[in-house]
């Protein structure tokens, strides 16, 4: 002990509960606010994701306006407006001014965010870096409410600075947020613009207008079709973690173990429930709320050993092959597009679905490695690509089979963008930053199967294209060389150059025609 004057009592005085907001203040790097440029991107990401979710859930085709104005070297004003359902007045300040408050945290369902930190985290970041309050304007179609709020860090409570109510003759509905934050603006691979562009690819029913420091860009919608609404499911015993199990036990309203297991989990019938209790040596009639620590642990282990059906998989909301192609088409200038949606599969009791799209050729750079666009539940992932299951799956796929060169351990070479969408009720991120998907074997396998199918379809296109080019080249090559050949022959033999050219042209035409007929006649039998 270095300081003998400190007593246990002194220490106890210093101990107190740490509020979530206070925790965030000290650990903001965990939530995407580790440097000025990433912070700005994270703010935009939270705003865009929220707006897309809100509008889609309400069955409204989203129209989102994002604007970023540079106020000073390192200070920006960010405005976001959507046409979603808005938030009722009573919940408005709580929804934005309290961390871990939201509609998404308590359910198992495919959605963009899950933690309930999202926009309130952004508000807290603004407050920490600029000291300014955030303005939130909301309407559900009735009156328009405008509040200015800050977050009381110690209490994790909203602090309303001002509240105005206005009439709404146009029946506008939606949310508008105006905030001021410290940041750094860049445009490149990991930037606000790239995030919005990729969001537009994954949300072809959304119109996004972006007004940034370097000008205005509009990302139009290409469809009015609304995505299928994902269904909420109960956790499957194979996917539940012990911490979550404890929480479920303590909040359960069931009176006995069989009731708890059959009603709070999916795919657990009376038979399986009794078997679990037997394996765990727990009385099936026991009240779940009074299970002790070791009983919970035994139950957790028992749940993994009992044979169960896979969870229902028709609960996800994939993009679909058609919309992946259209999403890519509108944002990528390429000549060929292909998309593959796999059927849903299961990892650790969680249903998931993998989709792959490839854009090839056109204006994409010829001699660089393929670009990877990653999405988890329709949210673009821009950081930590090399740690992500998507990158591992692309690298592990043998692209040489589809006519692309690829050095070992790398992405394939060629003018292409590879899109991978991972949809699941629970996305296994590798870290809090939520930027990379963990490499469960089931996930990698599904991704590789989708990539292989897309690769096969792409290779057919590329092969046909090369065949056409060869045909064209053949004629061109011969015609290009004829004058040189004739000139050389003239020098060697003294024979008339013009006559040689004429004769060579006749032979060439005849030969090219013959070859083409042969090709057409033989169809696909021709050697590759």
């Amino acid at each position, binding site marked *: 002990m270095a300081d003998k004057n400190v007593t246990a009592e002194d220490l106890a005085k210093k101990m107190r509960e740490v509020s979530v907001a206070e925790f965030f203040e000290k650990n903001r790097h965990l939530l995407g606010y580790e440097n000025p440029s990433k912070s700005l991107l994270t703010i935009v990401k939270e705003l865009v994701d929220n707006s897309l979710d809100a509008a889609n859930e309400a069955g409204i085709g989203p129209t989102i306006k994002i604007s970023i104005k540079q106020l000073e070297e390192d200070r920006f004003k960010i405005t976001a407006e959507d046409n979603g359902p808005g938030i009722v007045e009573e919940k408005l300040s709580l929804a934005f001014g309290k961390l871990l408050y939201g509609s998404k945290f308590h359910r198992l369902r495919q959605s963009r965010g899950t933690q309930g930190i999202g926009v309130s985290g952004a508000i807290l970041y603004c407050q920490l870096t600029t000291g300014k309050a955030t303005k939130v304007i909301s309407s559900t179609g009735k009156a328009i409410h405008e509040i200015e709020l800050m977050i009381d860090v110690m209490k994790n409570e909203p602090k309303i600075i001002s509240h105005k109510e206005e009439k709404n003759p146009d029946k506008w509905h939606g949310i508008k947020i105006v905030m001021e934050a410290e940041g750094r603006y860049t445009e490149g691979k990991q930037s606000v613009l790239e995030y919005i562009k990729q969001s537009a690819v994954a949300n072809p029913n959304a119109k996004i207008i972006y007004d940034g420091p370097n000008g205005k860009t509009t990302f139009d919608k290409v469809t009015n079709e609304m995505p299928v609404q994902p269904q909420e499911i109960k956790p499957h015993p194979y996917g539940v973690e012990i911490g979550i199990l404890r929480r479920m036990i303590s909040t359960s309203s069931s009176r006995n173990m069989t009731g708890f297991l059959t009603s709070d989990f999916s795919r657990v019938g009376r038979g399986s429930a009794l078997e679990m209790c037997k394996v765990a040596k727990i009385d099936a009639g026991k009240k779940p709320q009074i299970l002790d620590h070791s009983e919970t642990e035994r139950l957790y282990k028992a749940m993994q050993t009992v044979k169960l059906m896979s969870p229902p998989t028709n609960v996800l909301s994939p993009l679909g092959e058609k919309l992946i192609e259209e999403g890519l088409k509108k944002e990528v200038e390429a000549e060929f597009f292909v998309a593959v949606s796999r059927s849903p599969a299961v990892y650790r009791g969680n249903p998931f679905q993998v989709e792959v799209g490839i854009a090839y050729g056109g204006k994409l750079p010829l001699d660089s490695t393929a670009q990877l666009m990653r999405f988890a539940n329709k949210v673009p992932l821009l950081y930590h690509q090399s740690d992500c299951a998507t990158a591992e799956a692309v690298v592990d796929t043998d692209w040489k089979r589809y006519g692309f060169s690829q050095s070992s351990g790398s992405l394939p070479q060629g003018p292409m963008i590879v899109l991978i969408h991972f949809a699941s009720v629970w996305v296994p991120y590798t870290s809090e930053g939520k930027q990379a998907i963990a490499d469960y074997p089931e996930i990698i396998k599904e991704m590789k199967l989708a990539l292989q199918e897309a690769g096969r379809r792409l290779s057919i296109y590329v092969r046909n294209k090369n065949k056409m080019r060869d045909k064209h080249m053949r004629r061109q090559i011969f015609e*290009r*060389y004829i*004058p*040189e050949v004739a000139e050389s022959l003239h*020098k060697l033999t003294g*024979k008339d150059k013009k006559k040689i050219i004429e004769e060579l042209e006749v032979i060439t035409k005849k030969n090219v025609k013959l070859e083409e007929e042969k090709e057409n006649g033989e169809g696909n039998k021709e050697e590759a």
Partner: protein
Amino acid sequence: MAKETKKRLEQLGGKVVDEISKKENPSIDIPIRSLANTVYDPKTRQIKLGDKVSKRYFLNVAHAKSFMQTLLVAAATKELVDGGAHTSLRDLFYMLKRTLPNSEENTFDDQSESDPVIVDLEVALDVLREQLNLNADIRGRVVGNVTVEDRGDEINWGKMGSGGWAIPSNMEEVKFNKVKADYILVIEKNAAFERLHEDKFWQNQNCILVTTQGQAARGTRRLIQRLSTEHKLPVYVFTDADSYGWYIYSVIKFGSISLAHVSDRLGTPNAKFLGLTLSDIEEFELEKFTIKAEEVDLKRAEEMLKYEWFQAPEWQRELKLMLQKKYKAELESLSGKGLKFVTEKYLPKKIKNKEFLP
């Protein structure tokens, strides 16, 4: 000679023109140059090209360009021969390099494209590069009691000072006016050559001294071959005792794999190997002057063990000795026995007793 070359170039063009006028897909026959198409003829003791021929067609996407390139080189060399002008391989590349009209394609992108076409043409026409008026590298020197005529100049090899006469790349037109010698001694290294020259070895022994300065250039090989056949002179080769030195000897004697098609004009099958052998090291007690053999030396020796032209028991013994002892020795190691040991003891003894390897 020039007339014959010209005739063959015209024949090559004539065949193509004939095929064109018969509305056939024109082609050029090129013998294949690869180890698989190389054979060793024990009777003539030469590495020779096999009879495999590839046809280069104009109307074939894969051949068209090299077909055109072959004719471009042929036409350019015909102009050289017609005008009596000579040029280097590099010059020829620049003479022919240009961008084809209405395209971004070059006739030749770099010299590594034109050099093989020249060898193709040598093989197809059965002429030497020098006969196409194309000069190769200049390397190799010679001294001796010999007078030659080269481009109208009379040159006495004995009066060229300490460096001797630099052997030109084209030995075809050189005329031997007076040759007074009992034998030719070919030395791998320039330093050893200068040592012998300084000691007036060629005057005392009545011989011609040639240094190849490493692997023998074509001009040097042609000079050795012409002197030995035209003047019936025995040839003795003197190299380092290692696989590379011995291979220099084998190229002089049998020819090389890459130039197998010209072995009959560049090879000297009667050449004998004088030294240095690893047996010499033992005989003259030079062990302390040896060097540790490198990995590459041993690998080369292993390859050479398998070559048909190294199957003589004496050579098998030397190569195996090297693999076993794992050392090699330079010519200079003989100086360990005294500066004059080479000229006064080693060489005279070897030559007098005819202690040669085949």
